[in-house]
């Protein structure tokens, strides 16, 4: 597979959130503002790249029967590393994301890529798979985060928009997360069916 195809698959045609519908919990929970969404996306990307590379390097040594347990230990190790790095260097994001940083361990995107890609491919493609799938996750999170921040708090990256108009605070609440993601995935489904219709 070429790098360009992998880029397209990760960000658009096979986007982990919008098309594969994986990793719903962190997507919904951490998309209240754009900066939190990007922080979550990049942390998961870091873990995804590291675990994909290591699992791909070890793919001939991990016994088939205990592979899932081995993957979980590798992923949990990198998550602990990411957790400590965020606490040391990006304390405000660390506090905002809270329990969802350790919960990257059970993010199904990471285990899914380990099982379906890194365990069968060489190191370089696995690295790019981790990078682009991670960026695809970040991309979907960032759109949802931006929409929810603009509508829910009337700000973008903390800057005030539209003067005195009261924001629709529903979008900053949990219900707004479900609603926003529902509309976003509906849009993705609409675009992908229209694209298929055009090519036929």
């Amino acid at each position, binding site marked *: 597979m070429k790098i360009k195809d992998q880029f397209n698959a990760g960000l658009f045609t096979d986007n982990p959130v919008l098309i594969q519908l994986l990793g719903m919990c962190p997507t919904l929970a951490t998309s209240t503002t754009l900066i939190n969404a990007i922080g979550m996306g990049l942390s998961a990307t870091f873990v995804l790249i590291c675990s994909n590379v290591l699992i791909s390097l070890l793919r001939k040594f991990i016994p088939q029967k205990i592979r899932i347990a081995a993957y979980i230990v590798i992923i949990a190790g990198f998550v602990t590393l990411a957790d400590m790095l965020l606490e040391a260097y990006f304390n405000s994001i660390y506090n905002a994301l809270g329990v969802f940083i350790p919960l990257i*361990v059970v993010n199904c995107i990471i285990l899914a890529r380990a099982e379906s890609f890194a365990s069968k491919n060489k190191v370089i493609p696995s690295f790019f798979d981790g990078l682009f799938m991670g960026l695809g996750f970040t991309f979907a999170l960032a759109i949802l985060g931006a929409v929810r921040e603009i509508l829910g708090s009337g700000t973008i990256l903390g800057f005030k928009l539209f003067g005195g108009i009261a924001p629709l605070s529903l979008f900053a609440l949990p219900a707004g997360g479900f609603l926003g993601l529902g509309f976003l995935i509906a849009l993705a489904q609409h675009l992908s069916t229209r694209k298929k219709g055009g090519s036929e």
Partner: protein
Amino acid sequence: METLSFGTILAFAVNAILIENVVLSQFMGCCPFFGVSKKSDTALGMGMAVTFIMGLASIVTYGVYQWVLIPLDLEYLETIAFILVIAALVQLVELALKKLIPALYNALGIYLPLITTNCAVLGVCLTSVQEGYNFLSSFLYSVFTALGFTLAIWIFSLIRTRIEETCDIPRAFQGFPISLIAAALLSFGFMGFNGLSF
């Protein structure tokens, strides 16, 4: 929370089940919430399996944290330790149930392996440790949270059955999007319980 009177337990239960519902206001356990909520009996089965494992996991992770990680000064390994404990526990419970209580195994069997990736289980264990709950509070907290999960997934499965049977849904919204919007309305309903906080 050293002495647990009936009133504090009740307040704890209302808080964990209704006000801070694990799925609808904390977004933990969304995968099984959307994955196994097509029928109401499978939803209830999943809810019971989660309650069972969460109660056990809170006991075991409490022990591991207090008597292994703290004495060895390894608190920062909590994430790795807890996920391994939960994965091992799920396997053990599956084996034990198969051997000892086949009836319960037949009812819960297929849901058990899925629980390892239910982030609510790990999330609740980590939250209990961070909040510094004692043994009894962390056990009650996990059981009530799991009951909240069961309530949410059961109501949601009933809504989904009704949507599938009676509604004419626009093509772009079919499947997952309409479920998310139904979940949004349910979550909106649960926000009403905020008035109960005391």
